């Protein structure tokens, strides 16, 4: 897991992950690159991350992938990221195509649902919690 202040160097990360696994005999490599869309007049997005729980969440996915003979990777931005640059890259390597396609889908969806990351719109000099696009994590409401 890699966390960066500001936007990701997508090509560097893609290439380095590829090189790291060049002799590992994985047949399928599927990165997912998330890019900040220009919409609603935002200048960018900003992210808070709670790293201890993100790390645990990620380690569970590492174990889940390993049980299928696969590996997962992840990089995310902390703080401000301008539109049309990348804030998030995840990836799966697997010997097999089907495992890789199913794993990247499940991994990215669970990331959106349960990774402890909070998103803010950067707009007119303000940093506004993107509440309408945020979802309660699994188990939310236990104290209510």
């Amino acid at each position, binding site marked *: 897991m890699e966390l960066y202040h500001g936007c990701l160097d997508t090509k560097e990360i893609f290439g380095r992950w590829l090189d790291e696994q060049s002799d590992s005999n994985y047949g399928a490599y599927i990165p997912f690159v998330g890019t900040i869309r220009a919409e609603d007049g935002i200048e960018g997005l900003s992210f*808070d991350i*709670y790293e201890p729980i993100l790390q645990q969440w990620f380690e569970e996915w590492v174990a889940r992938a390993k049980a299928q003979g696969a590996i997962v990777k992840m990089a995310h931005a902390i703080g401000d990221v301008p539109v049309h640059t990348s*804030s998030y890259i995840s990836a799966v390597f697997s010997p097999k195509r089907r495992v890789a396609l199913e794993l990247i889908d499940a991994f990215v969806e669970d990331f959106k649902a349960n990774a*402890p990351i909070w998103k803010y719109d950067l707009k007119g000099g303000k940093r506004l919690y993107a509440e309408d696009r945020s979802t*309660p*994590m699994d188990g939310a409401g*236990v104290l209510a």
Partner: protein
Amino acid sequence: MMIKVEFLGPIAREPMEMEATTLAEVSAKLKADERLAGWLEKCAVALNDTMVTDLTTPLQAGDRVSLLPPVCGG
């Protein structure tokens, strides 16, 4: 015993110290705070950085309870 409650991300509140022996007691005390009312039903909870969902979870002195509001990574 004394435990600490912290509020992550956009809740933007300073950490609180309180007396509590279970998560149920933490819940009761937080519900009394009007400014938190809207957050509680949307927040997941971690105890010392491990996610928990059981209100009967016993607490130890020095424990740290974290409230995690709705997320949106990516």
